[in-house]
C-alpha cells in the first residue's frame, strides 16, 4: 500500500491518519473534507485517480494542518515514527512538510527498523530535508523541478533560497546539474525532473527525456508538480518498473494538461479531472 505524508494550509486542521477517497471536489479522510487544491491534497487526489484506474486500493494518508510555523509538521513526524511500527507500506511519499534535518534522520531510523524496506519518494519540503541532512542517497526517488535541481546541485545551499546564481542559469545545462547533484551525494537513486522537458535519471544517467505534448501554459500552474509526484507514486506502488513509472507519469501529466485546455490561470483541480482519460489514452 502507498502511504503519503503531507500538510494542508489550515493552522488548526487536526492530525488525520487513514485511507483517503474523493467525493466531488474534496478529499475525504476519517470523514473530514479537504478541498483539492495545490499541495498535498493535489498529490493525493492524483494518486487516487490513478489507483482507481488500476483498480487498486486507495492510499493511506498522514495529514495535518501547517501554515509554515512547522509545529504541525513536527507533530506529524512524531506520530509517524511511532505509527509506522504497526504498518506495512510498500511505498512512502513525503511531501509538503517543514524541512527539518533532525526529523528526517529520526524518520529514516524508524523506517530502518521495519521488516521490509518501503520504496521512498520525497518531494517539496521533505526533499529539502533529505538533502540538508545528507540523507539524499537513502531515498529511491526525488521529483524536483529545475529550480530544485539547481538546489540539489549546489552542495553549499541549505535551502533553494540560497542556490548560487551560476547554477540557477540552468535552462541549458540540466545534464551538468544532474552530474553535480550526484557527485556531491545530494540526489536519490532515481530522479524525475519536472520542467519544460521532464528527465528520468538513474544514478546520474539520463534514461529518458519527455517533451511531448508540450503545453507552455502548465508551467505557471501551481500543483502540476504535485500531480506528477502523485501519479508516479501510484504507479510505482502498483508494481510498475521505476523507469517506466516515471516515463508514464510524465506522459499522463502532460496529456491531462493538454486535455484540460489550460491557460496560465487554470487551477490544478481542473486538470486532475483529466488524469483518468489521459491514463487510458497512453
Amino acid at each position, binding site marked *: 500500500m502507498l502511504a503519503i505524508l503531507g500538510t494542508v494550509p489550515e493552522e488548526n486542521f487536526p492530525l488525520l491518519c487513514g485511507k483517503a477517497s474523493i467525493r466531488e471536489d474534496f478529499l475525504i479522510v476519517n470523514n473530514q473534507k479537504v478541498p483539492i487544491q495545490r499541495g498535498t491534497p493535489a498529490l493525493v487526489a492524483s494518486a487516487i485517480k490513478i489507483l482507481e484506474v488500476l483498480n487498486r486500493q486507495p492510499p493511506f494518508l498522514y495529514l495535518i494542518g501547517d501554515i509554515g510555523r512547522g509545529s504541525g509538521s513536527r507533530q506529524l513526524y512524531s506520530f509517524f515514527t511511532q505509527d509506522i511500527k504497526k504498518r506495512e507500506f510498500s511505498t512512502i511519499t513525503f511531501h509538503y512538510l517543514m524541512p527539518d534535518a*533532525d526529523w528526517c534522520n529520526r524518520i529514516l531510523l524508524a523506517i*530502518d527498523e521495519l521488516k521490509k524496506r518501503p520504496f521512498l519518494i520525497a518531494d517539496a519540503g521533505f526533499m529539502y530535508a533529505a538533502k540538508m541532512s545528507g540523507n539524499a542517497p537513502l531515498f529511491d526517488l526525488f521529483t524536483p523541478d529545475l529550480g530544485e535541481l539547481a538546489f540539489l546541485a549546489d552542495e*553549499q545551499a541549505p*535551502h*533553494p*533560497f540560497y542556490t548560487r546564481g551560476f547554477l540557477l542559469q540552468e535552462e541549458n545545462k540540466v545534464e551538468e546539474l544532474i552530474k553535480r547533484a550526484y557527485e556531491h551525494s545530494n540526489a536519490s537513486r532515481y530522479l524525475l525532473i519536472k520542467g519544460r522537458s521532464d528527465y528520468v535519471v538513474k544514478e546520474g544517467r539520463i534514461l529518458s527525456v519527455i517533451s511531448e505534448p508540450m503545453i507552455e501554459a502548465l*508551467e*505557471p500552474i501551481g500543483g502540476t508538480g504535485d500531480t506528477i509526484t502523485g501519479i508516479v507514486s501510484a504507479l510505482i506502488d502498483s508494481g510498475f518498473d521505476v523507469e517506466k513509472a516515471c516515463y508514464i507519469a510524465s506522459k499522463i501529466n502532460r496529456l491531462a494538461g493538454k486535455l484540460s485546455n489550460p491557460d496560465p*490561470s487554470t487551477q490544478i483541480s481542473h486538470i486532475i479531472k483529466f488524469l483518468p482519460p489521459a491514463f487510458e489514452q497512453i
Partner: protein
Amino acid sequence: MGFLKGLFKKKAPRPSQQPRGILIFENTSEVIRAEGILKSRGYDIKVVGPPAHVRKGCDLAIEIPLVEAMGILHILKENGYPPLDWMPADDGLLKPVDLFHIKDFGGYLMVRAANMKITVHKSSLTIVNISGGGCPDVPYLAAMLVGKKLSEAPRPIELGHTLCGYALQLAYDKIKELCLPS
C-alpha cells in the same frame, strides 16, 4: 531490516545538521528580550557569539533555524525587537538568490525567484497562480494571494514563515515592479 545501518554508523541523528541562521542586534538587552520572545513561542534558538565575519551589532547574537527565519523576523518586528540584520550562520559566503526568471505568456506574466513562481493576468492585474516551493506555508500563501489584485493582495512577508515565503516575496516585489511601475 537495517538497510540504513551502514550509512547511519557514520551519521547518527544530529540536530546541528539543521541549517542555522544568525540574528544580529544593536545591544545585549535586545538580545535577551528577543530570546525570551522566541523561546516562549517554542523556537529552537540559542544565544551565541556572532560569527567572526559579522562587523556590526553587539557581542551577542541569536542562532535560529534558518528555514524559519521569515516567521521569526515577523514575530520580533511585531514585538518591537527587530534585529539589525540576519544571515546564514556559515562563513558568510551564502547570499540570497538575486536572479529572476521572467516569462511572458501573452496575456499573463510569470516571475520566478529561486524555487517560487508568481503569475499575474496582465490586463486585470490579478494574481492567477503561485507555484514551486516546498515549505508548508507555500500552499497557504497561494490560498491567500491567488484571485486577488496585485495592488490589494497581502505581502507574502506578512503571512509567510519560511525561506520559500521569502523567495515568493522577492518574486512578488519583482512582478509588482514590472506590472505597477511607480
